[in-house]
């Protein structure tokens, strides 16, 4: 791509999709959010020069588009306000064997949106706590606390889940 700004955005398309999916919960809206976000970023007047600030700016655009749409649909304004009732600060005592991609994916989808969002920003998008704080406009300490509580909630949910990968019997000569 010859457009340097386009090239900078293109690097983040998949991660933007991951974040969009954590907000919207469906493929169609996620694609649409990414599309709209890219258009706005391409048309923006001023763009942060350093990469961490650019990254936080980009994901903040996507978040604002999502919030605008929620307001248009007259969804409750507190849809992205944290309401972490799960303790999530205690050490996890569950069984490691419950961990598999399917279980984690299913249980993450059931988490409240604010918890999905913070996990997505840090684990899927790969933002540092400082970048996430800029994206969400909250202090770094709050990000740290939210990450911990959200992961605690996800671990508890995974433990409660009875979804486990089926055992596969391997025969000689078969993969």
């Amino acid at each position, binding site marked *: 791509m010859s*457009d340097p700004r386009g090239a900078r955005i293109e690097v983040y398309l998949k991660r933007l*999709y*991951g974040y969009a999916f954590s907000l919207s919960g469906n493929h169609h809206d996620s694609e*649409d959010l990414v*599309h709209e976000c*890219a258009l706005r970023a391409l048309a923006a007047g001023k763009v942060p020069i350093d990469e961490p600030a650019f990254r936080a700016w980009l994901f903040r655009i996507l978040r604002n588009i999502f919030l605008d749409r929620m307001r248009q649909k007259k969804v409750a304004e507190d849809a992205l306000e944290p309401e972490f009732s799960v303790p999530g600060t205690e050490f996890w005592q569950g069984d490691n064997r419950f*961990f598999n991609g399917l279980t*984690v994916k299913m249980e993450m989808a059931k988490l409240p949106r604010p918890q999905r969002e913070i996990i997505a920003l840090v684990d899927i998008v790969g933002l*540092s706590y400082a970048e996430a704080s800029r994206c969400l406009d909250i202090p770094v300490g709050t990000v740290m606390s939210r990450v911990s509580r959200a992961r605690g909630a996800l671990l508890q949910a*995974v433990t409660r889940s009875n979804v486990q990968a089926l055992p596969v019997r391997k025969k000689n000569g078969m993969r």
Partner: protein
Amino acid sequence: MTRSEITFETLNAYVDGELDTPTAAEVARAVAEQPALARQVAVLSRLRSTVAQSIEAPDLTLPAPPPPRRLRMAIAASIAFALFVGGSALMATLDGPAQRDWLTPALRLHHGWSVDSAAAQQTRAALFLARYARTIPDAYVPDLSAARLSVEHVSMEGTGRDRTLLVGYGGTRGCKVSLMIFPTVSGLSEALTRHAAGRNEAYAWRSGNAGYVIVSEGMDPKRFRLVAESVRRASIEHLPVNTETRTALRRSRETSTPCAA
């Protein structure tokens, strides 16, 4: 640092590489000495990598960049100027008396559903569409999902020969488009005829025994023209829009500015 001094929050920050160097070193030492802490770190690391791999993103391409801001403003200004200077003249020269008869009620119908979105959401559109579309001979309601316009409202306005099937399409960027189909065809030609009044734009045509009017407010004019042409073609052929048109509709959405409606 003992286990009681290390919180779950600290361990999360440790796994994420967010602790300052002295604190990280203390936690690392404690983890090395205490199997229980080591297990927590292993669990969090595994959770982190599992979550990171849980989303499968499709192949995404960057949309075409919009025109530079200065050019967009110039285009918008020229359209506004043209409508201001030529609006009334356009109405007077293009509109025959019969056509002016439908333009005003058409705009009223459009505003009726597009402004009251709560009522639109309550309408069980698909159900009504199936019931009403048959009541007007030659009526054809196209699928405009390629343009990211989906049916949000369907109603039958008026009765007898004055009945009009009103189909409201909504986009994901605030666009609202009304398609009106009615059995009265007087004053309408088969060609696409454009009418503009302020921010409202309308196209009208006839297909068989049905008259069609499509109305929008604030949609990019080029995009709206393409939508109108696609609907007209579909109404004549009584076939869904073809692949070429679907592609053009998708592209027009990518290159146009969102609706101001």
